[in-house]
C-alpha cells in the first residue's frame, strides 16, 4: 500500500513542482529523492511497516513476492532516472509532468504487484498504459514519436477491449471479480467454456502487454519511435509490470490442466513464437535501438517460461530475470542515449574512445545474451529450470536455447563494433558520475550472476 499511495502523492508533487520551479535540475533532484523515498517506503512495507492501514475489501493483497518485485522495479526506475534523467529533459519542456507520469505509472505497477481483483488489474493496467501513450508521443514534433504513440494507443485500447471481454466472461462464469473467488469457481469447478474463453482473452491481452508474439507487433515500432529514455523505461519497468500482473493471474494455481485444457501448450506456442520473432528479427536490424526492442521481445519469450512452468522456480526466476534484464537493458539504453549514432556503426571503436562505456556495455550485452557470471545467465537458468521441472516439453527448452544462441549474434554485434571494428564512436559528454553509475550497475549484474540468493533469498527470509 505504501508504494501505491506514496507514488501517487509523489506524482502529484511532481506535477506541482513544475509550477514552482522551472529548473529542470531541481525537478530531477526531487524526482530522484522521491524515488528513493518510494523505494524506502516499499522496503519498509516488505519488512512489515506499512504506513497506512486501509481496508481494501480484498481488492489488494500484499505478498512478499509482489512487494519484492515492486522494489526491484522501483530500484530500476531509480537507476533509470539517475542514468538517463538528463535525457528526459531533452524530450520536451514538460519535465515535471514527465516525471509525474512516471510516478503514476509506478503507482499502476504497484497496484499490479498486489492486485487481487480483476477490477484492480484493469485499473492498474490502464494506469500503467495511459501515461505511456503520452510519454511515447512526448516529442510532439517528432513524427515518429507521434506515429508510435498513436499506434500504441490504438492497439493498446484494442487489447483493453479484449481484456474487458475476457474479464466479463470470467465474471459470467464465476460471479465475482475477486481473484480468489474466480480461482475457486473456475479453477475448481467443472468444465466451463465461458471461463476458458474468458481466460484466453485475458491471457491474450496480457500477452499483448508483455509483447509476446503474435501480439507483439506494437513493440518494435513503439520502442523505436518513442524517445529513447522512455523506450528504456517501457522495455524494462513497464514490461516487468505487465509480467507481474500476468504471473499473478496464472502462477501458483497449479492450473496445468484445468478443464482438460493444457495451458502449457498455449504458453509453449506463445513462447516459441515470441522467441522466434524476437530473436530472428533482431538479427537483421541495423539500429541498436530497434535491435534492443526486438531483444526485449525475445527476452519476454524467456520470461514467459515463468508462466509456462507455473511453479515456484518460475516465480523466483522471474524476479531474478526482471532484475537482470532490467539492469542490463537500462544500462544498455543509457549507453545508447550517450552515443550519437544509434546504428551499429555508431558503436564502432567505442572501446577506444570510451572504454568505460564500452566495457560496461559489454557486461550488459553479455548479461542479455545469458553468459555465465552475469545475472542474465542465472535468470535464464531459472526459467529453463522451471520449464524442465514440468517434465515435459523438452523440445521447447531446446528451442529456447537454440534461440538464445541466435541472440548471441545480435548482442555480440554490438561488442564487435565496440572493440573489433575500426572507427571513432562519438558520444555526448559523459560525466564521471555516469561512468561510476554504469560500473555499479555492471557490478550489480555480475554480483547477481554469482550470488543470486541476495535477491531471491529475500523472498524467504
Amino acid at each position, binding site marked *: 500500500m505504501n508504494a501505491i499511495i506514496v507514488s501517487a502523492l509523489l506524482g502529484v508533487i511532481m506535477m506541482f513542482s513544475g509550477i514552482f520551479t522551472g529548473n529542470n535540475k531541481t525537478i530531477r533532484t526531487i524526482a530522484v529523492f522521491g524515488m528513493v523515498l518510494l523505494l524506502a517506503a516499499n522496503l519498509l512495507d516488505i519488512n512489515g511497516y506499512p504506513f497506512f492501514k486501509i481496508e481494501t475489501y480484498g481488492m489488494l493483497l500484499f505478498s512478499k513476492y509482489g512487494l519484492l518485485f515492486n522494489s526491484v522495479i522501483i530500484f530500476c526506475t531509480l537507476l533509470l532516472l539517475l542514468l538517463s534523467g538528463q535525457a528526459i529533459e531533452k524530450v520536451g519542456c514538460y519535465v515535471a509532468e514527465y516525471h509525474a507520469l512516471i510516478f503514476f505509472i509506478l503507482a499502476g505497477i504497484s497496484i499490479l504487484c498486489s492486485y487481487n481483483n480483476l477490477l484492480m488489474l484493469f485499473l492498474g493496467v490502464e494506469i500503467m498504459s495511459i501515461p505511456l501513450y503520452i510519454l511515447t508521443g512526448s516529442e510532439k514534433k517528432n513524427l515518429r514519436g507521434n506515429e508510435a504513440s*498513436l*499506434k500504441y494507443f*490504438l*492497439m493498446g485500447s*484494442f487489447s483493453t477491449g*479484449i481484456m474487458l471481454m475476457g474479464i466479463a466472461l470470467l465474471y459470467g462464469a464465476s460471479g465475482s471479480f475477486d481473484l480468489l473467488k474466480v480461482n475457486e469457481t473456475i479453477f475448481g469447478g467443472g468444465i466451463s467454456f465461458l471461463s*476458458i*474463453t474468458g481466460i*484466453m*482473452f485475458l491471457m*491474450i491481452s496480457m500477452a*499483448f502487454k508483455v509483447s509476446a508474439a*503474435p*501480439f507483439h*507487433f*506494437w513493440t*518494435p*515500432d513503439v520502442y523505436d519511435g518513442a524517445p529513447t529514455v522512455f523506450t528504456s523505461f517501457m522495455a524494462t519497468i513497464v514490461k516487468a509490470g505487465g509480467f507481474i500482473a500476468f504471473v499473478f493471474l496464472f502462477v501458483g494455481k497449479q492450473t496445468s490442466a484445468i478443464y*482438460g*485444457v*493444457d495451458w502449457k*501448450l*498455449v504458453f509453449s*506456442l506463445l513462447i516459441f513464437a515470441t522467441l*522466434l*520473432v524476437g530473436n*530472428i*528479427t*533482431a*538479427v*537483421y*536490424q541495423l539500429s541498436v535501438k530497434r535491435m534492443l526492442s526486438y531483444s526485449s521481445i525475445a527476452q519476454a519469450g524467456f520470461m514467459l517460461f515463468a508462466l509456462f512452468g507455473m511453479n515456484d522456480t518460475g516465480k523466483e526466476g522471474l524476479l531474478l530475470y526482471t532484475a537482470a534484464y532490467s539492469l542490463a537493458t537500462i544500462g544498455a539504453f543509457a549507453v545508447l542515449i550517450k552515443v550519437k549514432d544509434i546504428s551499429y556503426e555508431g558503436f564502432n571503436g567505442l572501446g577506444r574512445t570510451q572504454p568505460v562505456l564500452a566495457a560496461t556495455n559489454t557486461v550488459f550485452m553479455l548479461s542479455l545474451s545469458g553468459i555465465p557470471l552475469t545475472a542474465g545467465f542465472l535468470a535464464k537458468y531459472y526459467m529453463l529450470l522451471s520449464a524442465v521441472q514440468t517434465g515435459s*516439453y*523438452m*523440445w521447447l527448452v531446446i528451442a529456447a536455447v537454440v534461440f538464445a544462441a*541466435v541472440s548471441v*549474434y545480435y548482442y555480440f554485434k554490438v561488442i564487435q563494433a565496440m572493440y573489433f571494428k575500426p572507427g571513432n564512436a562519438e558520444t555526448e559528454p559523459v560525466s564521471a558520475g555516469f561512468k561510476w553509475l554504469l560500473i555499479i550497475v555492471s557490478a550489480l549484474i555480475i554480483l547477481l550472476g554469482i550470488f543470486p540468493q541476495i535477491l531471491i533469498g529475500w523472498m524467504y527470509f
Partner: protein
Amino acid sequence: MNLVYLIPLLPFIGFLINGVFRNSLSKQATSIIGSGAILLSFILSVVAFFQVKSSGGFIVSYFDFINIREYVIPFAFQIDQLSSIFLLIITGVGFLIHVYSSSYMHDETPDHFARYFAFLNLFVFSMLILVMGANFLMMFIGWEGVGLCSYLLIGYWFKNENYSYAAKKAFVMNRIGDLGFLLAIFYIISKVSTLNYGLPGSAEPAVLTTLYTQFSGAELTAITLLLFLGAAGKSAQIPLYTWLPDAMAGPTPVSALIHAATMVTAGIYMIARSNILFTLAPYTSQIIAIIGLATAILAATIALKQNDIKKVLAYSTVSQLGYMFLGLGVGAYTGAVFHVMTHAFFKALLFLGAGSVIHALHNEQDIRNMGGLKKYMPVTHISFLLACLAIAGVPPFSGFFSKDEILVAAYASSPLLYYIGLFGSLLTAFYMFRLYGLTFLGNFRGTEQQKSHLHESPSAITIPLIILAVLSVAGGFLGVPEVFAKNAHLLENWLHPVFAKSYEAAPVHHVAHSTEWILLGVSTLLIIAVIVYAWKRFSSQTNFKQNSGLALVLENKWYVDELYDAAIVKPVNRLSLFFKNVFEKSVVDGAVNGVGKFVHYSSRQIRLIQNGSTGNYILFMVLSVVVIFLVIWNQTDIVSFFKKIF
C-alpha cells in the same frame, strides 16, 4: 653385461654431440666423434658376443616403458645369439661406413657434415635398439627410428625437392608396413598381454618361448601376415619395394649402410626373430616364399636395364632381399640370416665402391658415361670385382654359400622354387657383370674434364673397401654347408637355440647330399657361363641405343611407379582435394554457414510482417486469437502429435 646399454647409447651420445654442437665442431672432430662412438659400440658388441658365447643370451631390463594395469612393457634389451650377430654386422659395417663417410662427405660444410654424422649415429642407435630390444615394442621403436633416419638421410640434400620427395615416399611406404606391424603387435598383446620375446630356451612366459601356443592357427596366420606386411615395407618387398630405388637419393654411404646392409634387413630380422610364429603358420610361409621369389625376379629383371649405378645396386638389393624372404619362407632361417650377413658385406662393398666411383667422377652416376675405370682406380676395381663375384654366387665367395643355402632349402620345399630362384641368380650374375663391365672395363666414355680428374680415392675410402672385400670373400666360410664339411656351418650352430623351436615344430627337409652336389655344380656352372657372357658383351660396348619393347618396359621398371601413382597416389590426392575444396566447404561448412544464412534470410522475411501498418498488426492479432482458440479446442490432438515427435 651392465655395459650393454652403452652399445646404443654411445651412438646416441655421438648424435647429440654432433647434432647440438654442429656449428662449433670441426669436420675432423665430428668424424672422430661419429666414428669413434660406433667403434666403441663395435667393441662392446664384440664383448657382448663373447658374453653370449660363454654364457648364453641374457635380458637387461631398465625401466617400465609402458606400465598399465593390463600389461607391462619393459624397456629392456635382449642379447642373444641372433641379436649379437646383428650387433656385429651393424656396428662393424656401420663403423666402416662412418670412416668411409668422413672422406666421402668431405666437401660438405662443417655444420652439414656434423648433421650427416649425427644422423648416421642416430641411425645406428635406432638400428641397435631394433635388434637389441627384448620385445616387439622395442623392435617397433627401433623400426620407426631407422625409418626416421632413413628419411632424414635420404633427404639429406634437402635443397633438392626430388630428394626430399623420395625421403617422404620412403617413410610413407614404410608406414604402410608399420600399419601391419602395429596391428600384429596389438593382436599379440591383446591375446597374451605381453610382447616379450623371451630368451631362447627359457621357460618364462613370453611370446616366442611359451605363449605362442595360445594362438590358434588362424590367429597365427593373421599375425604373421601382418608382421610380414611390416617386414615387406621395411625390406622393400612386393608391393612396397618402390621406395628403395628412390632412396638412392641419399649420399652413397647412406645407401650402403641403410639401404643395403642394415636397415632393409630389419624385416628379415623380425621374421627370423619370430620364426616360431611363422613356422606354425605354413600358409604365411608360403606366401612369404612366393613374394620373396617374385620380388627377387622382378627386381632382377628391372636391374637388367638400369643405367644409374646406384639404381642397379638398389634393385639388386631388392632382389637379394627377395632371396632372403624366400629363405625365410621355406624355413631356412639360418640361411636367411646368413645371407643378411654376407649381403651386408658385399652389398656395402658394392655401394661403397660405387660411391668411390661416383666420387671420382664428380657425381656422375650413369654407367653409360663410365668405362675403363680399371686402370684409374685399382683398389676400387678389385674390391668391386670381388663383390660382384660374391653377389653372383661364385664359389668360394661368401654369396655362394649363403645363396645356395637358401636355394637348396627352396629345392627341398619345392623344386619349382629352386628353378625360378636359380634363374634369378643368373639374372643377378648378368646384371652385376653388366654393371661391372660398363663401369670398369672398356674405355672411358665420360667427358675429358672428368677424365683428367680421375684418381683413386683416399685411404679413408679404400681401407673400408679392402676390409669389406676381405669379408665378402671370406665371410662365406662361417656357413659352410654340411656337404662340404660336417659341422662346419658355424652360424647354424650358433643360431640353433634361436630357431630350435621351429626346427622342432617343422623339421627342415634336408636334400640328399648327392642332389645338393648336383644343384651346386649346375648352378655354379651356369653362373660362370653367364658371367663370361656378360663380361664379353659389356667390356667393349660403346654405343647405347634407345631401348624398345620389353627392354623399355624394364628400363621403366615395369611402370610400377606409374601404376601406383595412377592407382593410389592420384586418387588419394584427388580425394583429398575433393574433401578440402568441395566437401568441407560446401557440405560440412556449408551446412553450418547455411544455418547462419537461413537465420539471416528468415530474419529478412519475418521482419516484413512488421510492415508498419496498424491495420495489419491488428489483423494478425485477431487471426492469432482465432488460431489460439483452435489450438485450445484441438489440444489433445496437438499434444499427442508433439509427444509423438519428442
